[in-house]
């Protein structure tokens, strides 16, 4: 089994309280289902849509997460899957797609190389 990071990109559009509740519930259901099947190592952390980017030799400090709203990382989770293909398959149920967001699926590089098992 390999660990993967899901990077959630794209912030939600403003919604009514009822829509927000439905979205929140969908996310909770999706992650609970994956978690119940033993595929979630860490639910991860949400990130606030603010911050600074420090950049270059001059260590220039720039406002904001330095991306278009749809590309801003809103949070991440750590998933356990057999391989990249399965990790992608698990991501398909993520409610983020309904709002035009994306999930970037990235295998976590191991420090020690295993014996092939």
């Amino acid at each position, binding site marked *: 089994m390999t660990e993967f990071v899901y990077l959630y990109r794209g912030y*939600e559009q403003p919604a009514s*309280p*009822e829509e*927000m509740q439905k*979205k*929140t*519930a969908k996310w909770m259901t999706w992650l*609970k289902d994956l978690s119940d099947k033993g595929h979630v190592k860490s*639910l991860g*952390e949400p990130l606030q849509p603010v911050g600074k980017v420090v950049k270059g030799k001059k260590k220039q400090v720039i406002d904001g997460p330095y991306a278009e709203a749809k590309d801003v990382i809103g949070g991440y989770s750590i998933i356990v899957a057999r391989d990249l293909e399965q990790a992608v398959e698990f991501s398909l149920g993520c409610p983020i797609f309904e709002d035009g967001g994306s999930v970037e699926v990235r295998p976590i590089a191991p420090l020690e190389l295993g014996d092939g098992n």
Partner: protein
Amino acid sequence: MEIEEHFFRHEFGRIVATLTRLFGVSNFALAEDVTQDAFCRAMETWKLRGLPKNPSAWLMTTAKNRALDILRRERTARVSAPELARLLESEWTLVPTVEEAFSTYAVNDSQLRVMFSCCHPRLSEEAQIALILHILCGFSLKEIAQAFVSSHAAIEKRIIRAKKILAGSTKLFDLADADFPSRLSSVLQALYLLFNEGYHGSSPEAAVRMELCQEAMRLMNLLIEQPALVTSQSYALAALMYLNAARLPTRLDGSGNLVSFFEQDRSLWDHTLIAEGEALLNLSASGTELTKYHIEAAIASMHTSATITEETDWKQIVSLYDMLMAIHPSPVIALNRAIAIAQLDGPERGLQEIRVIHDLHRLSSYPFYPAALGELELRRGNYPVAKAHFSTALSLARNPMERHFLQRCIDTCR
């Protein structure tokens, strides 16, 4: 852990009312922004981490901290309610004043003050209801447009204008004001119309919209929980809502189709709600005033107290309708009175009464007017005439449930 149904909506109303109390009604837009921001944070956090132990307190604390930030940063009267400005300007009194505003009692009080402010005399009844749904029930413009079968643009225009009038007030309505009684009548009328819209919905999608009834009852409960504000007519309206709500589960059958009152399964009526409704009806009898709410609640009670249709005291119901016509005449009430008379004295008498209804033309687009004619003709055995009336009713039907119901009526005329 599951989120309680409509939790976000209800918390939205509580928080936006509390912030409006602190920032002042002229800064309503700021209160809305801060509330929306607190909800976005809740959603982003909860969707990954799951619900906190006390979601309501989480939201309240988030909104409270944000309010403190803004009040500290501004340190001017610009973002505070005029009557609180002095308390909010000094660090000594800022935190206790904000804490106090977020106490349960103050939150309920603020919701009531916003509700009374929404029923501003310069706003039409429709605008008052739309504003209440938007602010206190967290309905989006789209959700209000769906609830009232109106276009998004029309509702948007109505809400923008209503918000301007609201924000133009110097402060939130004071519940100790001398105008309280007349404003209370407007508030009760708005809640009555909101409940009825849910109960006898004219929506193209659904004949019954439980959530509108539930919102009306939630706000009604806020009003009758404040002993100093309760009047006998408030109790009467609450009783009417509880007694009618008890019958809601049987207005639609398992497939979502309307069920005729006479065919409803009375064993499925909600007896807890009936008992509460009866208790409220008793409380409403304390005063000397007799309002339409008292009489309508009494009629509802006559229905819920009969275990089978045949046991219904139609004589008493007809005399209650007579009283209702005397204080609040309307063609729909006259039609219901005629139907009750038909139950008591037979379909011919009912038809006679319908023929003499004043302003009958006002019922010309109301499907249940020809449907009533059809039903009474059917009972007389005049199948072709009954069928023609039901066909007219069908052409006026406003949603699939009404259409399906009237089609079944036509089918019984063979």
